[in-house]
């Protein structure tokens, strides 16, 4: 049986550097930093007091009050980004909704909801007064559930959870379901909203986050010698992907083709990346093999590059192993330098960035670069500080999650 071709026909994004796809892309091209002091709660006693929040966000701009109150912030982001993608794809009418699925990614789910309900219980006398919306708001799959309810999509519906690889795993799963013929269209991507006391406190305890409070704007600095951890972000990225013949039949515009997905596991440590990078080598090899292309065909890698001392080096080492001499011809960039790290939402917004790089022939930069890291090969093109113009035929998006999950997705300029 021949696999069906799968194309991207709609994009959506709500991010710390722009709350729609056009403003997100403008932010990326211009090298905008989304970092600023935390406004979502009083962080004055926290080690990290800044994050990449979605700016000027109010649910009232998107939802009526009753509707918004029943969704955790991560689900609100999911619905907002998917609405934009669905509209962009022209998916609202004239399709068989039984053949449209929603496969979403979230690493954590409704952390704020869980936290609030736990606080409320702790403040009381032990009498349980949990809100009936607590569980349906908190569970990670309330994102895909709400997207399907709003739009009447009755195809496959679930959420993937693999920490920071979650939404890339969702995209790969969606790609597989379509190419196997189990759905014609899938709304995919992912969202996260973990800028809460529990989120910031928890990641601080892991010593995973930057503590550069005196210079928050430049704190996310992947591949810089003085990088000191990731900067927490929030938001959502959404794709509408569909079988090529389905898109063609309804005359949809096509952004790019998904040609491969690779998965692997480090099998090493629950939070630390394997310093040898073997799992990361494997995931890129798996993705290239699935795509049926040679390493030399890749132009751009949107890296995981979270700005942690260990992770950044391991990924670069792995890229050099997989791509050999061609590594020097690649553009490599970490858009997390601008957006911060959206955890389970990262693969969603980074897929959008990779697809727009193909569409516009522009590589978004790795900003905040000050000092070269002597441990990293200076002949590599990290796209430091300014966007670069480059024809992109093939882009690879890498994401890796706590638990040792690695996922790579490969996009190619569409040719009929």
């Amino acid at each position, binding site marked *: 049986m021949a696999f069906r071709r799968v194309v991207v026909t709609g994009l959506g994004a709500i991010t710390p550097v722009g709350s729609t796809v056009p403003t997100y892309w403008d932010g990326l091209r211009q090298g905008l930093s989304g970092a600023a002091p935390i406004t979502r709660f009083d962080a004055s006693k926290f080690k990290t007091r800044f994050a990449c929040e979605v700016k000027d966000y109010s649910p009232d701009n998107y939802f*009526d*009050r*009753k*509707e918004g109150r029943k969704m955790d912030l991560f689900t609100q982001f999911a619905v907002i980004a998917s609405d934009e993608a669905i509209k962009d794809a022209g998916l609202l009418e004239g399709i068989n909704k039984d053949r449209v699925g929603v496969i979403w990614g979230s690493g954590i789910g409704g952390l704020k909801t869980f936290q609030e309900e736990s606080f409320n219980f702790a403040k009381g006398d032990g009498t349980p*007064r949990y*809100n*009936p*919306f607590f569980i*349906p708001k908190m569970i990670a799959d309330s994102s895909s559930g709400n997207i399907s309810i709003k739009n009447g999509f009755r195809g496959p519906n679930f959420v993937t959870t693999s920490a920071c690889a979650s939404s890339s795993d969702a995209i790969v799963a969606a790609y597989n379901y379509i190419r196997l013929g189990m759905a014609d269209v899938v709304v995919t991507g992912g969202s996260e909203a973990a800028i809460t006391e529990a989120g910031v406190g928890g990641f601080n305890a892991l010593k995973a986050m930057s503590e550069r409070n005196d210079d928050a704007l430049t704190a996310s600095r992947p591949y810089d010698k003085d990088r000191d951890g990731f900067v927490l972000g929030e938001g959502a990225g959404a794709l509408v992907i569909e079988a090529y013949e389905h898109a063609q039949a309804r005359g949809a515009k096509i952004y790019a083709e998904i040609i491969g997905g690779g998965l692997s596991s480090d099998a090493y440590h629950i939070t630390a990346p394997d310093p040898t990078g073997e799992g990361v080598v494997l995931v890129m090899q798996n993705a290239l093999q699935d795509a049926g292309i040679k390493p030399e065909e890749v132009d751009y890698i949107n890296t995981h590059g979270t700005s942690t001392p260990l992770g950044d080096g391991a990924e670069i080492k792995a890229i050099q192993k997989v791509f050999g001499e061609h590594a020097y011809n690649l553009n490599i960039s970490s858009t997390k330098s601008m957006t911060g790290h959206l955890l389970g939402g990262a693969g969603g917004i980074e897929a959008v960035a990779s697809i727009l790089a193909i569409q516009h022939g522009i590589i978004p930069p790795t900003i905040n670069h000050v000092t070269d890291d002597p441990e990293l090969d200076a002949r590599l093109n990290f796209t430091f500080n300014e966007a670069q113009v480059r024809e992109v035929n093939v882009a690879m998006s890498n994401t890796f999650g706590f638990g040792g999950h690695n996922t790579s997705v490969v996009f190619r300029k569409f040719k009929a």
Partner: protein
Amino acid sequence: MSEIAEKVKAIIIDKLGVEASEVTPEASFTNDLGADSLDTVELIMEFEKEFNVSIPDDQAENIGTVGQAISYLEEHAK
């Protein structure tokens, strides 16, 4: 209107996102005000919190309209 009735109406308007004019004594939470079963549970919990009462499940089942809520609370509120 009693103070309790005013408070009950305010809670219903807030939780169900309806207009004050819709919140008549005969209005049913589910049939007229768009509440689903979870909304109804949440309303009962809000009444318990606001009026410092505990409404047993078998009695909560009999509170289906605005008027029923008001008369129950006027009788039981502390």
